């Protein structure tokens, strides 16, 4: 009794939240949490995309998140020689514009006699002891150096200033990277690798999957187990023996070991376990009575396969095709090993890795190049997400 008596007023005093209020707070938290995740997962890509269309000079000196604000770049110009001075209102004056003839909407943010000095003097202010005169610079670039006495400096002294340039977006980076850096050629190479290597395994896998799903024969269980086992075998196990094999074949026929045919066949083989597994699962799920009905109607296995199973398995075939295409397009290792890194045939991923090595600081090129490489898979992904998800669900060993 006593505990109840002492506890009760406290509980009342705190005015415990009603369930409804609690749910509301929970909801808002859920929205915020998910928003945070979405932000974390999208900003990296957005940053890449934004950066790839920024002006090269602006990109190098300011973060992409400031790209809509004018960027400030350090620059320097020389003022006119002392011989050009005129007299105005009893003062000796040198006048001119720091931008020269072409101001192009640029504006001066600050200026100074030395590099470190720039931030100390905003546009419109005056430096009093500049080569024996006082220097005023307007944001338009117009400067006036004036002195009550005659100016007697030699040469053309330098003025350092920060130029604010308006945000500038351009496709120049893409032009550069596609042509000069060979991304364009690599794009074609990637397509050359991906198209046949996506199509070839489908048919081979579909026939095998049908046999494993709908035909009874001794050894079937073993083949299914083999396929499942091979699903996880690391590619690394295959590389060395296959390279040996390719070299021997090339030696025998006098051709070249590295080439498109080799990559196509390698990708076909490496894609087969997933293809067979995925298609077998799907085909095994087709109604048994349809197969039996076709059998009673007099269809052979070949006919059942071509006229029933193939058309009915379209969603699974599409799923696999998307997987295989994405996997090949994104692959680096297989292409590197079996096609090589030569300039005329290196695929996009390989080219990007090369760029990272040689142009590591040229973010305008790297971002544009990377975007060229991801735009294809992203398009495929967003257009065919349904099939992609379905395939993913069917393909994970459950």
């Amino acid at each position, binding site marked *: 009794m006593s505990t109840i008596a002492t506890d009760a007023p406290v509980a009342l005093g705190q005015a415990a939240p009603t369930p409804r209020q609690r749910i509301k707070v929970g909801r808002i938290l859920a929205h915020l949490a998910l928003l945070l995740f979405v932000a974390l997962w999208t900003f990296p890509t957005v940053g890449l995309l934004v950066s790839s269309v920024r002006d090269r000079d602006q990109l190098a000196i300011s973060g992409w998140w400031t790209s809509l604000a004018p960027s400030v770049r350090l620059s320097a110009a020389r003022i006119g020689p002392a011989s050009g001075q005129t007299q105005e209102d009893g003062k000796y004056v040198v006048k001119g514009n720091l931008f020269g003839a072409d101001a192009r909407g640029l504006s001066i943010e600050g200026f100074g006699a030395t590099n470190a000095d720039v931030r100390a003097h905003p546009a419109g202010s005056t430096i009093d002891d500049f080569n024996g005169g006082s220097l005023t610079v307007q944001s338009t670039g117009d400067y006036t150096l004036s002195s009550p006495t005659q100016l007697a400096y030699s040469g053309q002294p330098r003025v350092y200033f920060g130029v604010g340039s308006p945000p500038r977006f351009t496709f120049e980076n893409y032009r550069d990277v596609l042509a000069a850096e060979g991304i364009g050629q690599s794009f074609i190479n990637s397509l050359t690798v991906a198209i046949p290597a996506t199509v070839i395994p489908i*048919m081979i896998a579909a026939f095998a999957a049908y046999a494993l799903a709908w035909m009874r024969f001794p050894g079937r269980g073993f083949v299914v187990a083999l396929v499942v086992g091979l699903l996880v075998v690391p590619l690394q196990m295959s590389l060395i023996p296959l390279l040996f094999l390719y070299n021997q074949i090339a030696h025998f026929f006098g051709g070249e070991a590295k080439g498109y045919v080799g990559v196509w066949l390698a990708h076909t083989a490496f894609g087969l376990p997933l293809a067979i597994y995925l298609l077998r699962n799907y085909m095994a799920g087709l109604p048994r009575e349809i197969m039996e009905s076709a059998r009673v109607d007099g269809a052979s296995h070949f006919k059942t396969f071509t006229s029933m199973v193939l058309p009915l398995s379209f969603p699974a075939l599409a799923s696999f095709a998307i997987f295989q295409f994405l996997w090949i397009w994104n692959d680096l290792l297989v292409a590197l090993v079996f096609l090589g890194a030569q300039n005329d045939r290196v695929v996009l991923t390989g080219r990007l890795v090369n760029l990272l090595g040689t142009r590591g600081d040229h973010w305008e090129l790297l971002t544009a190049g990377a975007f060229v490489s991801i735009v294809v898979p992203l398009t495929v992904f967003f257009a065919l997400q349904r099939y992609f998800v379905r395939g993913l669900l069917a393909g994970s060993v459950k």
Partner: protein
Amino acid sequence: MFQQILAAVIAVAIALAACFAYFWGTNWVLDRLLMARPGMSDAALTRRDTLRSQVRPWLFIGPALLFLVVYLVYPVFETLRLSLYDKFGTRFVGLDNYVWALTDDTFWRSALNNVGWLLIVPAFSTAFGLIIATLADRLWWGNIAKSLIFAPMAISFVGASIIWKFIYTYKGPGLEQIGVLNAIVTALGFPPQAWITVPYLNSFLLMIILIWIQTGFAMVILSAALRGIPEETLEAARIDGASEFRQFFDIMIPQIWGTIVVVWTTITITVLKVFDIVYAMTNGEFQTQVLANLMYRWMFISGDYGRGSTIAVIIMLAVLPVMVWNIRRVRAEVGTA
């Protein structure tokens, strides 16, 4: 340029024609060789039917089997053999390569890094995936959110590496930072860092890339599993007075436990094979080396087939338990017929 694409398209046409010719042709030949002839006894007919039904499956799986054996089965054994041979694959050296691996510092560094990857990436990917799936299924814009978080799945490891290298990029102190990470660090008043070169921390920064990619995978699979939970069990728990948190941990998690394990192991396999990210970001410098990249170096830079094979075999050994487990589960499901 377009000749090249044309060549690819022609290759597709030739390959399809060859496939079709093979499957159609062998089936035709089979039916022809064993076809019903007038005047044949019923028993003979039936015998031929049976024979055909025994041969045909092998015609169907033949090409696939050929590919699998040449490109995956044979290489596994050949790599095993090569791991017992010297640099050029000519002289038998017994377990020398394995002894070398176990005493080599770089190998141990790589193996340890791999263990770090194995512990961290699947854990975070699965946890984030589960959280996002749970949140998204409750909010009206959940599908859009899932779609956006899923998208990195489609991006290559190399592309993702560039995206994140840009985030980690470093400019000298006093300059404006263009990498988000350093911009945040300097805004908080700390000096900027060349993150990629800071040992141990850098490995973690590389792992973030893979987590960023794999979370979408975990999310999609787990989201489907969560939707498969019978609504009644949650309603019953609600009536029993379970809070949202209790419902999540007592009712939902146990029901999708199997799926969580599958997601975890699938990501584990991906992690074991991770090569591109390390290759592109650091090429194993600054103590970020992992086995897959180390294997590539020994194999293709140093040209040492023995040591390259040895490292491949060790990766394979790490995959082996998952492989055995998968096979057993599928066999239990499909039966051994």
